């Protein structure tokens, strides 16, 4: 590198971050959407998980008619979890632009996922359901501890508690 180019480099580099040589147009930041609120991310994740659990119970109930009545009660409780999570969305301040439901903010997809595979053996189904509940307890526990909003934390704690009770009650389903 020549001495001349070194000088140029030395002159230019410190100025790169300075706006002296930039026109106002170039400085205009490209509008990036504000990142979703961390609680909205938690809500969306939890709603997706509760939907998946509900779908799992309904598929299990359809595949095992002798367990249907009981499993539908579990599915109903997961349905109530979704409503409880959605009830924690704070009201928008007056004059806010187009509201989008927080639970749809980050990633929720409207495409219905493939129905879950259900084991033919009833004991294996119960194991499948218990494994899903245990995984959900861990997720909702972690979400509860991270939530900013106290009411959201309470709802997530209550959901984790119901799922722990489910895990226990599933032992006596068969």
């Amino acid at each position, binding site marked *: 590198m020549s001495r001349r180019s070194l000088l140029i480099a030395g002159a230019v580099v410190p100025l790169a971050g300075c706006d002296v040589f930039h026109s106002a147009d170039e400085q205009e930041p490209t509008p990036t959407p504000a990142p979703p609120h961390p609680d909205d991310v938690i809500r969306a994740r939890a709603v997706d998980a509760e939907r998946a659990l509900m779908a799992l119970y309904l598929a299990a109930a359809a595949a095992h008619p002798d367990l249907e009545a009981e499993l539908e009660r579990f599915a*109903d*409780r997961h349905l*109530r*979890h979704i409503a*409880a999570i959605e009830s924690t969305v704070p009201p928008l301040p007056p004059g806010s632009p187009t509201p989008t439901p927080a639970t749809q903010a980050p990633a929720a997809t409207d495409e219905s996922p493939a129905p879950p595979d259900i084991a033919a053996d009833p004991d294996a189904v119960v194991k499948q359901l218990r494994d899903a509940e245990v995984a959900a*307890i861990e997720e909702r*526990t972690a979400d*509860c*501890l991270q939530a900013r909003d*106290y*009411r959201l*934390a*309470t*709802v997530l*704690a*209550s*959901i*984790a*508690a*119901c799922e*722990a*009770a*489910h*895990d*226990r*009650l599933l032992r*006596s389903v068969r």
Partner: protein
Amino acid sequence: MSTLDALQAALAGEHACIYGYGLVGAHISESAADRARDGYETHRARREELARQIRLRHGEPVAALPAYVVPIEVDDNQSARQLAGLLEQRLAVLYADLIDVTSVPALRELALTTLIETSVLAARWTGDTFALPGIDEPPAL
């Protein structure tokens, strides 16, 4: 409600559970006697922890009442189980209230863990669960 108020309410609830479990233990069948004893000990341990948390916050832990009005007549195994389930369900509400008001992460974690424990115990005693333990109100009786 402040964090201290919620801790005091939870402590008062634990006092009531300790009293109630004494009654449960006297009428429960042999097959569930260990569980009743474990429940009694768990509530006593929590009472100590809550009293410690209250003193840390310069509060004077509420004392147990000399006696409690028991919401159902307990005279056999079935009514003993029913009371134990009800005690756990009502206690869950007090811990949910604590999560509702506290900004202290360690207390949120304590209340979360306890809410899970009480809900599992309630499910074992009653064979059922609320969709939202601690939020769904147990029957007043």
